[in-house]
C-alpha cells in the first residue's frame, strides 16, 4: 500500500521511475540498444516533433515620459525597483547555541552493562567490588554494593573512576524502583542561620543520616541482587568476592592485567 502512495505523483514533483536497464557489474548493460529501442517504444516517436512553445518575453523596463525642459523627455525605468539602501557592514551572525549539560550525549563503555561487577577507584568506597545497576540521565553510573555484603549503598559514580570486570550477574530479575534517579541523590543543603543568632563562625556539624525512603529502597534492591546471585549457583564464592577489597600485589600492573 505504501508503494502505491509513493508511486503517485506528488504536487509539483514528477514521479520518478526506475531505469529499466542496469549495469551487470562489468560495464555491460543488461539490455542492448536494440532491446531498449523496443522497450522504450521509441518507434512511436520517430519522426515526430513536438511544437516549441513560444514564451513571450516580459519587459524589464518601461519608458516613461518626463516633463520639463532639458530633461530628455523620456527615461527608461526598471519595472522592479532596486533596493533603496544597502548595509554598509556585514550583519553579525548568530552563533549556534551551545548545548547544555542536560542535552549532552551520554557515552558508556561497552564493557559496562547492567550486572557488571565494577571495582571502585575513588570515593569513600574505593577498592570495593560493586554491582553496576544502570546509567542515569546525568551520565553517572548507579552502583550498589550490595550494602548487605560490602557496605556500599546505592550511589552514583563517574565511569572514569571505575574498572569494569568481565564478571557479570544476570540482572533480568532485578527491577529498580522508579524514584531512583539523579534527583534522588541530590544533596540537601540546609539554609544558613541568620546573623543575629549567636556566633556567625560557629559551624553546625550535621552528620549524614539516610532517610527512611532510602533505607527501604536499599533493602529492596539488595534483596533483588542477592536473589540474582543465588540463582547463578555461585553464591558462596560470589558473596566472598564482592565482600573482598581489590588490591594489587608486587609485579601486578593494572594496565597489563585482564579484568
Amino acid at each position, binding site marked *: 500500500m505504501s508503494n502505491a502512495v509513493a508511486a503517485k505523483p506528488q504536487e509539483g514533483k514528477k514521479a520518478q521511475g526506475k531505469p529499466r536497464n542496469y549495469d551487470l557489474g562489468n560495464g555491460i548493460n543488461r539490455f542492448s540498444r536494440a532491446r531498449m529501442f523496443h522497450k522504450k517504444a521509441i518507434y512511436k516517436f520517430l519522426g515526430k516533433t513536438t511544437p516549441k512553445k513560444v514564451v513571450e518575453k516580459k519587459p524589464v523596463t518601461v519608458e516613461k515620459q518626463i516633463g520639463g525642459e532639458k530633461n530628455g523627455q523620456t527615461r527608461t525605468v526598471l519595472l522592479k525597483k532596486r533596493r533603496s539602501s544597502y548595509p554598509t557592514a556585514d550583519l553579525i551572525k548568530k552563533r549556534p547555541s551551545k548545548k547544555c549539560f542536560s542535552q549532552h550525549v551520554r557515552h558508556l563503555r561497552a564493557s559496562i552493562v547492567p550486572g557488571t*561487577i565494577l571495582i571502585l577507584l575513588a570515593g569513600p568506597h574505593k577498592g570495593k567490588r560493586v554491582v553496576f545497576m544502570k546509567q542515569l540521565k546525568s551520565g553517572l553510573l548507579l552502583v550498589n554494593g550490595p550494602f548487605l555484603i560490602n557496605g556500599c549503598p546505592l550511589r552514583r559514580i563517574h565511569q572514569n573512576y571505575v574498572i569494569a570486570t*568481565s564478571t557479570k550477574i544476570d540482572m533480568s530479575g532485578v527491577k529498580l524502583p522508579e524514584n531512583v534517579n539523579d534527583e534522588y541523590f541530590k544533596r540537601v543543603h540546609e539554609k544558613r542561620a541568620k546573623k543575629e543568632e549567636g556566633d556567625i563562625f560557629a559551624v553546625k556539624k550535621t552528620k549524614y543520616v539516610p532517610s527512611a525512603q532510602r533505607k527501604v529502597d536499599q533493602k529492596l534492591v539488595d534483596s533483588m541482587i542477592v536473589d540474582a546471585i543465588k540463582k547463578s549457583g555461585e553464591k558462596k*564464592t560470589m558473596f566472598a*568476592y564482592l565482600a573482598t577489597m581489590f588490591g594489587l600485589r608486587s609485579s601486578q600492573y593494572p594496565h597489563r592485567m585482564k*579484568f
Partner: protein
Amino acid sequence: MPFERFVQTGRVAYVSHGSNKGKLVAIVDVIDQNRVLVDGPAAKIPRGQMSLSNLHLTKFRLKFPFTGSTRVVRKAWEAGKIERKWKETVWAQKVAAKEKRAALSDYDRFKLRKAKRVRNALRTEAFYRLKKVAKKSKRPVKPTKK
C-alpha cells in the same frame, strides 16, 4: 656433559620476539654470526632471515641437508614429531601456564587465591602433624609427600 645446543642446520628454535613470538622454527642455514635462515612450515612462518637474538635454541634437531627446501623441512618436521615433543617439554608447559595466568579475569584470580589458601592450610596442618609424630618417636621420620 658437553655443550650440545648449537646454531646449526636443523636446529629447532623458539621465536622470542616479534610478530611470530611463541612459535617454533627450524634453522635452515647460518647466514653469519648474528643471522640465520629459518623456516617454520608448521607455524606458517615463511622462509626468511631472523636475528639470533630473537631466537632461543631448543634441544631438538632435525635431520635435513642445509638449505633444504620448505618441503624438505616440513617432511623432516613431521617425521620428527616436533609438535608433540615440544608440548611435552617443561618449557612449553611453562609458556602455556604463563598464558593461562595472564588470561585470568579478576574473579578467576580471586578464586585461585582462595583455592591456594585452602591448599596451604591443609599442607601446613599435615606438616605439623608429621613434626609432632617425629618428635614423639625421637627418630626423625622421613616426611611423605602429600
